[in-house]
């Protein structure tokens, strides 16, 4: 018994260890909650939008500086043009040159005031050469002013130079403006391309994010639905981690695991208490089954003590034998009852069906002979081993054989067959050619204390104990019968595969 107990508690400990391991595995993963993930996703989107907005602002301000620059260079060019117009008037009509000089002075001021900007756009060298050109133009104008009135060859020379220089200055300003316009145009088109690319990029980012949300929310939901179905079907193995990170679903998994282990213990309690309840409803049966032999013993002993001298010796002996048989009857009931209510699992080992059936048949051999019953046994060779407890299975088959024998008081045939099934079970049939079981009793034969045998002949516990034994083995037992033709009990036992 302690061995059996150890076995069952070892199973319980292994189950508990499995549950604890699952909880541990669930917890071990780095934590990345759904909330963090969603927050991360939105932060990412916000950062991307921020970048694009800042880029747009920077771009617009850049465009604005370029615009301002164009305006300034435009003003500069205007002053130069103005100067050149006065210059032309001077040569054509001999008008005053001072206006031209004033304009050049303004242009020079423009150039100096915005020197840094211009330098940034056209480069240091061009700026310097622009400044030199302007200074030369100014110097030429001043020279011209000092020339005496009237046409001199010196004036003509200066006029040519002045024209060249003016054109050069205007050309340079124009070129700077053109360059700036081109960069502005290319900036605008870059901006447009960037905006469209960004839109496309955002489309993919969003698609990925949507997929990510689906993966981290819808998929686990589907998985949990499968878990629920599995648990509903009675598979109480704990949920183990399938993903890298821990999140709210992990908490759910842990809660479910906790619920499962609770459920398992509750179920065990329930099974035990159901058994106790069954025992409770048995009490009347027990009272009957135990009271009768006790009563018989009591009456016989009372008769013997009261009238010890009145009975002849052989009568006394017969009465004592009666007492003994009643004691045996009571102890058989008690023994069966203990088998029925036994909680701990008997030790299981791989067993050969053939061996069990044959040894049991040998035990019943004498009874078979006495009743004139023929044994027709056909157990296939090489049946897979089953997993079970030899002693309790022998008890089951012995009870089936004895029931069959009792159903054939005038002889007959006991037919035993065993074969492996495809579904991982071995099926053992125990058939007889006896009186059969009437339809109204067929549902009751597995009930405790149901018997049609004479008092003292049967406890009615045989089949109910067998039923619970086979259930403990993970198998089942069924019956088919026809009154007057015979009965067949079929026992299905799981093979020693993975069970």
């Amino acid at each position, binding site marked *: 018994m302690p061995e059996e107990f150890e076995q069952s508690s070892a199973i319980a400990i292994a189950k508990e260890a499995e549950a604890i391991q699952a909880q541990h595995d669930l917890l071990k993963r780095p934590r990345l909650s759904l909330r963090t993930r969603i927050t991360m996703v939105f932060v990412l989107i916000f950062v991307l939008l921020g970048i694009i907005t800042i880029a747009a602002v920077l771009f617009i301000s850049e465009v604005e500086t370029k615009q301002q620059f164009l305006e300034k260079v435009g003003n500069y060019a205007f002053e130069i043009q103005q100067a050149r117009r006065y210059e032309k008037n001077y040569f054509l009509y001999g008008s005053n040159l001072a206006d031209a000089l004033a304009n050049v002075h303004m242009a020079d001021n423009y150039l100096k005031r915005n020197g840094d900007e211009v330098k940034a756009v056209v480069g240091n060298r061009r700026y310097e050469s622009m400044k030199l050109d302007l200074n030369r133009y100014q110097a030429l104008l001043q020279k011209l002013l000092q020339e005496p009135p009237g046409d001199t060859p010196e004036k003509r020379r200066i006029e040519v130079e002045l024209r060249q220089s003016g054109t050069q200055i205007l050309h340079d300003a124009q070129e700077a403006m053109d360059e700036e316009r081109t960069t502005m145009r290319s900036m605008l088109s870059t901006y447009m391309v960037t905006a469209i690319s960004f839109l496309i990029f955002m489309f993919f980012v969003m698609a990925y994010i949507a997929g990510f949300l689906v993966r981290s929310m819808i998929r686990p939901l589907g998985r949990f639905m499968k878990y629920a179905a599995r648990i509903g079907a009675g598979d109480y193995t704990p949920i183990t981690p399938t993903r890298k990170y821990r999140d709210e679903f992990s908490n759910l998994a842990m809660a479910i695991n906790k619920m499962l282990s609770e459920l398992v213990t509750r179920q065990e309690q329930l099974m035990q208490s159901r058994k106790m309840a069954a025992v409770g409803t048995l009490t009347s049966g027990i009272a009957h089954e135990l*009271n009768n032999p*006790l009563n018989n013993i009591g009456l*016989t002993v009372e*008769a013997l003590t009261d009238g010890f001298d009145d009975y002849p010796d052989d009568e006394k002996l017969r009465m004592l034998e009666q007492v003994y048989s009643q004691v045996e009857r009571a102890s058989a009931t008690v023994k069966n009852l203990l088998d029925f209510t036994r909680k701990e699992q008997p030790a299981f080992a791989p067993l050969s069906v053939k061996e069990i059936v044959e040894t049991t048949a040998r035990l019943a051999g004498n009874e078979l002979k006495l009743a004139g019953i023929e044994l027709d046994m056909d157990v296939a060779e090489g049946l897979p081993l089953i997993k079970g407890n030899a002693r309790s299975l022998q008890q089951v088959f012995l009870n089936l054989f004895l029931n069959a024998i009792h159903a054939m008081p005038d002889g007959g045939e006991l037919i035993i067959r065993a074969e492996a099934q495809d579904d991982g079970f071995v099926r053992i049939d125990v058939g007889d050619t006896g009186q059969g079981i009437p339809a109204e009793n067929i549902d009751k034969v597995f009930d405790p204390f149901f018997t049609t045998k004479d*008092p003292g002949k049967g406890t009615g516990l045989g089949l109910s104990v067998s039923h619970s034994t086979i259930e403990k083995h993970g198998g089942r037992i069924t019956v088919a019968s026809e009154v007057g033709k015979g009965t067949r009990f079929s026992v299905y036992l799981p093979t020693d595969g993975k069970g």
Partner: protein
Amino acid sequence: MKQGTRVMVVDDESIVCERLMKHLTGEGFEVETFTDSAQAIERLDSGPAFEVVVTDLKMKGPTGLDVMHHVSGNSPGTQVIIITGYASIEAAREAEYTGVFDFINKPFKLETMAALVKKAAKKAGKDRRFKGGGGA
């Protein structure tokens, strides 16, 4: 004791019948025993009446109650003693087992049973005299 007081014992436990037969006969009763309640009912329906019927309650075939119904149908003066296997005599009494002289629990003593049968026989005799039936 009263001569010719007839007692019927019905119990599918043959030892009970054997002991009661011996003991009650020793006490001076005329005893008939039946291990088969169906036969007992047949006897009640056909043969002369009994003063006292002692019957087990839970039996294969007709139960103790069936036996009792046949008694009260055939001979109103007959007293019925019911043997029960249950400890809940009170509950049995409260149930509609009226018309029962008394219940006795298994296991019982021969002595107790004999005393109960005697009391029942006395009551049966009175009832009969009252009805003018006489004990012949």
